[in-house]
């Protein structure tokens, strides 16, 4: 069901765009240029013309730019939500319990790597979501108050354990990444030296 919805949303978006630009193409990939900056040029121009009667030019321009950007974000959000709906569908089908958010993330990455969704097609909405990411956790954090009575007794211990594990995990992880990266870099250098030495020897022999 959801997949159908997703397909419908995509189809709708593409339809709208196609009418606006009077170019009929297929697929999300070909919607790419339509989602990018030079969007609905004729319409936006007429808006700015109308606004010029009331506002001085710079104001009208900023308003148009803002409206244009918001509209683009809304369209791009539609595309991202469509990918999320598809991700949800995939997570339902998978035999192990992979959360739908992770599925959507992998799916979007696959789409981007495959060139189905171009970076410009989601960049404005993605930047908007990433810049404001913390706010989306507010409701979940507030909901903790509902179970406060359940954890009241062990509260201090839980906070202390959380504090300690955060420090331990941070240290171990960052240390592992740096150490493995250094080891690999060193062995690469050694391999390069060996190759160079071998090259010199073969030159000598020749």
């Amino acid at each position: 069901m959801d997949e159908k919805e997703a397909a419908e949303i995509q189809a709708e978006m593409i339809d709208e765009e196609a009418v606006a630009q009077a170019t009929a193409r297929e697929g999300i990939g070909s919607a790419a240029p339509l989602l990018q900056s030079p969007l609905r040029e004729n319409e936006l121009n007429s808006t700015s013309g109308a606004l010029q009667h009331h506002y001085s030019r710079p104001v009208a321009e900023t308003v148009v730019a803002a409206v244009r950007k918001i509209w683009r974000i809304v369209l791009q959000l539609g595309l991202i939500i469509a990918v999320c709906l598809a991700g949800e569908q995939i997570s339902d089908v998978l035999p192990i319990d992979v959360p739908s958010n992770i599925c959507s993330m992998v799916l979007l990455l696959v789409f981007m790597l495959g060139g189905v969704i171009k970076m410009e097609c989601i960049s404005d909405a993605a930047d908007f979501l990433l810049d404001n990411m913390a706010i989306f956790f507010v409701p979940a954090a507030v909901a903790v108050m509902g179970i406060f009575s359940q954890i009241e007794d062990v509260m201090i211990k839980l906070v202390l354990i959380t504090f300690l594990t955060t420090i331990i995990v941070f240290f171990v992880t960052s240390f592992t990444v740096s150490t493995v990266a250094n080891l690999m870099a060193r062995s690469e250098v050694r391999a390069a030296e060996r190759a160079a030495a071998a090259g010199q020897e073969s030159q000598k022999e020749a």
Partner: protein
Amino acid sequence: MEAIAIFAFGIVISLVAFQGARWLSGKLHSPLLNPLLVATAFIIVILSVFHIPLADYQQGAQLISFFLGPATAVLAYSVYRQIAVLKRHFIPIMTGCLIGSLTSMLSAFLLCKAFGLDEAVTMSMLPKSVTTPIAMSLSEELGGITSVTVAVVIATGIMGSILAPTLIKVFHVKSPIAAGVAIGTCSHAIGTSRAMQLGEIEGAMSGIAIGVSGLLTMILALLYHSMMM
């Protein structure tokens, strides 16, 4: 009419509280003034003082929670932008996630035992460093208390985003890749929202670490569980 007002209340108070908290943390540069923490505390105080039921708040707040899905998905966008870094440092990043996830569960387990917490709470703490949906299903699987897990997961996230800049300095983490993977592994998406502000590479690596560490933790926990059975 009232229904609309209740719906609007949840959205408006969340937005206002968060923007206010962000403004405040910009003015006073204290790491403790984490916007998420301050906004949450403010809303909880408002709800308790005016005796507003949590359910009323959640009606509108649901709309904000809805964007968690798309916000997590677009981490793929930041990963894609740093795909060259990921390819080049693939093995260190994966090793970091694996060792980090193991350390997370092991340290949580040992500390819970050391503090004398009971079995159910210990099991709720094991998946505390991974993203909420994975943590919830794991906690259930292991016989933990789901609501405790959610609380601890969020606490870990906030803790990570508060501590991250300090830890980077204290442990002299020079590589933004190592810092990013560490933040994502120890404090999932909430930490990642902080990593995004530290830098683009940190944010992208943290985003990768959420997914990879989440999946690894899931596999490790299920292995442990099946061995114990």
